[in-house]
């Protein structure tokens, strides 16, 4: 593992909402190409950690470093251009638009074309082709023209992932990608995530430990904003604190 460089490093990251300490001096180092799982009970500060990494929230203290570059003060919108993509736990897509348009918006986010008031979006065949490819990657190209509001929850989860992958991220943050899915749908999404090439580093939040266990190389357990346990899959599973906090034993 030591041969790989660090993709994402978080040092002393702290955030509180009023008197509630949500992220308590969190240290985290994810190596390039790693598959990291972050688990913890509700309210452990998992999503807040993601929001701090993507710049949607400003930390009270600490630093976020992406591929050796300190991005703590970089606005969120620029972090997308530096290679961070994320999915959301609560799906935040564009319900009035088609699946194709949803993914196209994601692609446009990283293209200078997004500023053009004169070009015709319908005629951007290269861009639309890439959007269809991204939909094909998650097995939804046959629904490209369908409005998002007419798709199932499981399909929307996959659109989320298609949008994140379309941005060609170097690091992908998945926030509970299995939440609310049936067993078959979970398996589909897990296959999908497993197929993502190794040049993409993946950090996944999951509430339900059993689903994502096979996916993870290293696991971080968060509890009340603190990193409680960190290690390989077997280390974490065997750790008494994990059982105590997470499994409620």
């Amino acid at each position, binding site marked *: 593992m030591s041969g790989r460089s660090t993709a994402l490093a978080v040092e002393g990251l702290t955030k509180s909402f009023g008197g509630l300490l949500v992220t308590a001096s969190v240290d985290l180092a994810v190596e390039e190409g790693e598959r990291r799982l972050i688990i913890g009970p509700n309210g452990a500060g998992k999503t807040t950690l993601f929001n701090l990494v993507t710049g949607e929230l400003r930390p009270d203290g600490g630093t976020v470093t992406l591929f050796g570059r300190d991005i703590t003060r970089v606005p969120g*919108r620029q972090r997308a251009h530096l290679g961070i993509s994320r999915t959301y736990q609560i799906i935040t897509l564009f319900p009035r638009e088609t699946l194709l348009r949803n993914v196209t918006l994601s692609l446009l986010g990283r293209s200078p074309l997004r500023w053009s008031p004169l070009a015709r979006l319908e005629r951007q065949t290269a861009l639309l082709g890439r959007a269809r490819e991204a939909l094909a990657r998650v097995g939804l190209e046959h629904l490209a023209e369908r409005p998002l509001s007419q798709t199932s929850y499981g399909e929307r989860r996959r659109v989320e992932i298609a*949008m994140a992958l379309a941005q060609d991220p170097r690091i992908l943050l998945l926030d509970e990608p299995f939440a609310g899915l049936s067993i078959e749908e979970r398996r589909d999404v897990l296959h999908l995530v497993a197929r993502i090439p190794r040049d993409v580093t993946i950090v996944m939040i999951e509430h339900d430990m059993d689903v994502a266990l096979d996916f993870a190389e290293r696991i971080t357990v968060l509890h009340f904003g603190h990193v409680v346990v960190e290690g390989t899959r077997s280390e974490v599973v065997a750790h008494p604190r994990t059982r105590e906090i997470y499994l409620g034993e």
Partner: protein
Amino acid sequence: MRRLALAAALLILAALPLWASGTFYINIGSQILLYAVLALGINILVGYAGLVSLGHAGLLGIAAYTAARLLNGGHGHLVAVALALALTLAAAALFATLALRGSGSGIGFVMITLAIGQIVWGVAYRWISITNGDNGISIGARPSPLGLSLASPAHFYWATLVVFLAALGSMAILVASPFGASLRGTRDQPRRMAALGYHVWMIRFLAFLLSGLWSGVAGLLFLYYNQFVSPQAVALTASAEALLMVISGGSGTLLGPVVGAALVVVMKNVASAYIERWNFALGAIFVAIVVFMPEGLVPGATRLWRRAILQGTPRAAVAASGERPAR
């Protein structure tokens, strides 16, 4: 089919001075078109950016007052128009900077645009040395672009039609462009758009400028049409009326603001001749629109039309064609 309808509509509009009886109706046509330009401008913000402005009459007024002062100061029409639009753009930039502070949307945006509109009204009403106060400013004559005098109602109507078509055309291009898609994205999911790499503030700022520019153009048409501008033009009621045009016709649609402008102008001018309490009638119409077609006249009528067609088709035929009924 669509093109045919478009060509027919264009022909009817262009020929209006020939079939409308008398200058009264030609002038109504000019008013509809000039307010449609204003409503189209406001629609960029209200419909596509999801930002409700109650201060756009202020921008219209800044253009009208600036041009009026310059014309009376002995400057030519070209200079007056260019400087008026430049000043309107500068004002729009300032307004946008103030209104887009903080979260940049929702009730804060409405309140700040309202306050700014009231400040412009206050200046128009009270800063008498510049605006001549309640008496307003009259200008000498309409311009003669390319040697064509716009003095007659018909000529002015055609000139207004050309400007209106330019506004409508530019709007159609904007809506179909990547920037238009980005703008609608910031309306529906601003947070998501930022995470996807979009500069949400800048997108809204540019939309405000464009909206301000067309409001300025409408202001110039307003000045040349009336050959007069007074504080009434920049009052809150004027901003509210323009907003109602957009919402009643259908915000976020191309033709909605145009239909809304026609509705308000016709009610104000034509219906007021027959119905004494036309304000009441207009209010009743707005209530009816909100109750039966909350999305506005254009999308609402389209919806009812589709439903009527579907009901006219026998169910067996729909099933046989393999299409899903009703979206």
